[in-house]
């Protein structure tokens, strides 16, 4: 067991973890941050995506021990001053979600992507989200919603 300090959504948490504990288990089972979803639990669906020092990672295949001293942002912390992030707003208003299970992962993938690529085309968005599986929407509405969010972000 090793002590790790995690800076999660602006709060600091200190925990003892073993070398095999994944960040997904830590978030969901120990810190009750259940917004991050467990889909496949083996790196193949994107629903567990969180940001580690600003970079998206799959928390189901990220050992918590590697996150010592680092900043983690989950879906619970992506909103700004109590408001949904524009990507969340658009997914909700434009039909970009149905059951919502894949949505936290889509948001945590799309937000850093749009920061790096504010002028992304539909094809770019499709490629960026190609690791996020959704069993409900058929993807079209997700892509549209993310494009609309990009427009919202560009126009402030």
């Amino acid at each position: 067991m090793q002590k790790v300090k995690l800076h999660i959504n602006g709060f600091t948490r200190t925990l003892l973890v073993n070398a095999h504990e994944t960040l997904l288990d830590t978030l969901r089972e120990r810190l009750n941050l259940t917004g991050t979803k467990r889909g496949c639990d083996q790196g193949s669906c994107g629903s567990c995506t969180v940001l580690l020092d600003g970079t998206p990672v799959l928390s189901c295949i990220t050992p918590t021990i590697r996150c010592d001293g680092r900043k983690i942002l989950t879906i619970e912390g992506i909103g700004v001053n109590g408001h949904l992030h524009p990507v969340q707003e658009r997914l909700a208003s434009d039909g970009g979600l149905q059951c919502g299970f894949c949505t936290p992962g889509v948001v945590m993938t799309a937000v850093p992507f749009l920061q790096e690529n504010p002028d992304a085309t539909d094809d770019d968005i499709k490629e960026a989200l190609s690791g996020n599986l959704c069993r409900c929407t058929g993807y079209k509405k997700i892509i549209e919603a993310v494009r609309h969010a990009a427009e919202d972000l560009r126009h402030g």
Partner: protein
Amino acid sequence: MSTSSYFLPGTIDEAVSLAKAHPNDHVFYAGGTDIQLHVKQRLIKPNTIIDLTAIESLKSVSIQKKNMKLGTMVTLDQIVKNPDIQKFYPILAEAAKSIATPVIRKSATLGGNLKVSNRCSFYNQSFDWRQSVGSCLKDTGDICQVTGGLNHCYSRNVSDLVPALIALNARIMVQTSTGINEMPLIDLYVPDGLIVHTPLGVGGIITEIFTSDEPSKWWFKKLRLRKSLDFTSLTVAATVNKKDVLRVCVNGVSMAPVLVETGINDVTLEGLILQVKRACKTVDNDYMPLKYRREMISAFITDCWNTFH
């Protein structure tokens, strides 16, 4: 509760010494995107984890004119986006872009890809699945579930960077506790899933990969069901260099990458296909049918040939 130890060495020497101190139960951790899948499926349970992420010297990228030298902790995302790699070695950028997903590529490294574990539809399954079908040679069983054999494992080498790099005539630097060696990348692979990476040596770290064989023509294609997420069912990478040497490397259909190297004018299409097929030991251990994969080897090589001629 697990008793695994975790180490975060700051230098290659330190990592190599740690591996020497734990010869039988250590694993080097790069991006972890391959290891973690094996941990999840209870295929491995490493006791000593040696995390390479703090070793800055493994992260260098140097491309001077046609000389490319890459540290093995460079991520696949960096390879895809590097303008010099796109310019001088586009086949490598294309190969990296074909791997996993954009998010996984931000963690996955070059070194991990060179040593990605061989795949087989009877082995890379959940614990329950394997229990119901029966374990195999590569796991805890005593026969190969595909061939019924007792000695060899036919699991497939599925790296997509490896065929591109072998087609580029790449060489690697390997550091072990006894010293530093240089070798052609192709020599890293033995055609048997049980011993595939043994030339690396126990506790060997691949530190660098390099090439200066800038191709005048290149070709790369990967066969899979979806354009994202799926591992390869067949990858063909080929180059022609300035001296008209054709290098065709085929992966995903045999236990190790298969290379055919010849003068472009010294071989016919039929001869090339025959040489490749003879060297591939393709068995029925992928979700795509065996006959189809064998036919696609011919189809890909024909397509490549037509592009080059």
